[in-house]
């Protein structure tokens, strides 16, 4: 790294006028971002394969299995195919906006990764406005989608763009309001501070902190699904209604970037939920550092591992939801947002304040988190029981192995 920096500075004389520390910093950051891009690209690609395989299993079929082992290289093949497609602009389209839209969608999505905390210290920039930055920058995606929908000069695209914009901006409100209880409890907007305020064990997570954060967790997760245009809120891309939604007229690489953003967004939804409500990278570090003393550095690795594992589980849940539920209608989507989520989020804020005041007075309320944890545990248990019941009633052969 050092030698590379030397080499770059040597060859670009104007850099020599800038203090060396900053140059080093920039070069380091550059590589960090490249690494991140690599991770995002890899994630988006592999998720597209995973999603299709999971969908295959859910739908009692196999899914892509031709390219590479178990079809694993399918996403590379798809990407290469799109490279060889024509970059196409419809005649009546607003050319500038049409060409610009994918960049904006992609940049808006990608910039969020600056504050995604992969581990203790493993964050590109620990901005002190962390979560606020996410809310602000992710709104760029709406602009991009509206641009693509409007500029295509296609009525289906326009409808898709409009639906998407209406949906994303509407759900922005319950989502940001659902974050507030967490901010109230943490007293900081920084991502790392939010994670540090929680603990490694589930009952220390904000999701189970008090009844209001418990509700906020669900509002946030569902609202984030809607912001990511995922089923049951895939109204902007409803293929049976709008053909393909706002990206109807796009082809080749430009189309790929829309999908790239969509899949990367999947990870953002999961990572933010984990950060805010599910304990982030917290691991019971004190246990094994005390035990072995030596393994101190491994704590970071374990934390990152835990964080990614949690997010991947949520990603799986999102995929699962997508292939299970039908789609809401646009007015139902609005009803859910404005008539249920927004009032509930307001109530959550007020409730959290009252809770904080009460908890200061009566520490016994701290035990509520254990109850909530048990309640939270009931949700997956209930789902598991329903699934086993369905399995029993179906009496058909069940293949749980995802590989053939």
């Amino acid at each position: 790294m050092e030698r590379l920096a030397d080499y770059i500075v040597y060859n670009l004389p104007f850099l020599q006028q800038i203090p060396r520390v900053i140059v080093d910093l920039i070069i380091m950051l550059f590589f960090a971002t490249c690494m991140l891009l690599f991770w995002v690209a890899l994630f988006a690609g592999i998720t597209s394969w995973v999603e299709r395989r999971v969908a295959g299993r859910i739908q009692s079929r196999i899914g892509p299995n031709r390219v590479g082992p178990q079809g694993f290289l399918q996403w590379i093949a798809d990407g290469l195919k799109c490279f060889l497609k024509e970059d196409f602009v419809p005649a009546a389209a607003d050319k500038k906006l049409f060409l610009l839209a994918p960049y904006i969608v992609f940049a808006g999505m990608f910039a969020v990764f600056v504050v995604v905390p992969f581990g203790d210290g493993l964050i590109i920039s620990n901005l002190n406005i962390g979560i606020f930055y996410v809310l602000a920058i992710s709104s760029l995606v709406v602009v991009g989608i509206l641009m693509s929908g409007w500029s295509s000069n296609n009525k289906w695209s326009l409808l898709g763009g409009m639906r998407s914009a209406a949906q994303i901006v509407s759900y922005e409100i319950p989502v940001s309001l659902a974050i507030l209880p967490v901010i109230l409890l943490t007293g900081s907007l920084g991502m790392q501070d939010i994670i540090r305020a929680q603990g490694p064990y589930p009952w220390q997570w904000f999701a189970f902190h008090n009844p209001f954060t418990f509700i906020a967790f669900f509002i946030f997760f569902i609202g984030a699904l809607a912001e990511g245009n995922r089923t049951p809120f895939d109204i902007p891309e409803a293929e049976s209604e709008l053909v393909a939604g706002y990206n109807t007229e796009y082809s080749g690489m430009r189309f790929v970037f829309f999908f790239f953003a969509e899949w990367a967004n999947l990870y953002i939804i999961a990572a933010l939920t984990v950060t805010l409500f599910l304990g982030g990278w917290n691991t019971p570090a004190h246990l094994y550092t005390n035990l072995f003393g030596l393994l101190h550095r491994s704590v970071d690795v374990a934390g990152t591992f835990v964080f990614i594992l949690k997010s991947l589980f949520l990603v799986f849940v999102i995929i699962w939801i997508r292939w299970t539920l039908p789609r809401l209608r646009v007015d139902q989507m609005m009803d859910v947002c404005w008539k249920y989520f927004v009032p509930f989020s307001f109530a959550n804020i007020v409730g959290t304040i009252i809770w904080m005041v009460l908890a200061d007075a009566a520490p016994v309320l701290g035990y509520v988190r254990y109850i909530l944890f048990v309640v939270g545990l009931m949700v997956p248990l209930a789902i598991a029981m329903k699934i086993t019941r369905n399995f029993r009633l179906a009496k058909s052969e069940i293949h749980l192995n995802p590989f053939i």
Partner: protein
Amino acid sequence: MTEFITEEMTLNMGPQHPSTHGVLRFQLTSDGEVIHSVKPDVGYLHRSIEKIAEKVTYHGFMPYTDRVDYVAAMNSNFAWALTVEKLGGYQVPERAEYLRVIAAELNRISSHLIMLGVMAMDIGAVTPFPYFLRERETINDLLEELCGARLTYNYIRIGGVSSDLPDGFRDRALRFLDHFEPIIDEFNRLITYNEIFVNRLANIVIIPREQAIAWALVGPNLRASGVKWDLRKDEPYSIYPQVEFDIPVGKGEVGTVGDCFDRFIVRVDEMRESSKIIRQCLDKMPEGEIQSKLPRQLKPPKGEVYVRSESARGEMGYYLVSNGGLNPERVKIRTGSFSAMAIMEEVSKGIMIADMVALISSLDVIAPEIDR
């Protein structure tokens, strides 16, 4: 909030649209999401089957009837055979009648399976579709054993059927039915009573009883509006009087009678009844001939006849005029999908685009059947 005025937008829904089930076109005028008017535009799949009928023999027209409604080709075959038999007064052996009903009911199940799967997909649930089609595959296999084809069967012949049951067909059919009947409950658990699905369909595009009759809706669409009218019961033909089955009607289980959900659930229940009919037929089937002796070149007497029968999409009628020659003089086919298209304009004012999609699929229109 009517004080705001926006310009209407004219949208072409179809012919190449994912939810128009073939090549079908609707010209919508809408204000954003809300549809103001719908103009169905049919004819993209017109293959002049009625005109072809005038150029081919009576036997020779049978394969064309497959193409009238390729999703329920067996029922279409059946209707044509009934028509010519009635005009010519030809007899059909009893075993052949049973075989016809078995084949037609199997085909009715497979047709409903497609409709239900596609409707779920139009509502946004992609997963049920492969499950419905998986069951349909088994039916296709059975029908392939029976007649060698999986889609356009050409199985029912004038005066009988083309082939007898293959060895072991009865066991395989029974095994399928044993497997299939619980699967219907599984479908209900999978999609029918899903909260979102119910919300998308309940109280959407209600077609009341009177309106359904006035616009000549037929078959399951009519029954969903609460009219207990099934030609298999009310104008019995073939051996339907000898089997026991119920006619499911729309009950407004989650909404109002005649809404989209009723049109969905009526077909689900009809599959159960069809399965019942097949079981009885397999039990009661006598031994004997499967094809009565008819001349190779059929010349029904001069005259005209209209025969209707209950296809998967409701009443399918063949109007046949014969001049005593080798070819029919005129054939007119009346299909359920065509009359369903007529009501479209009337009922779709003020609904949303997403409801429109639900309406099209709930009426179970098949583009080739509309245009013929």
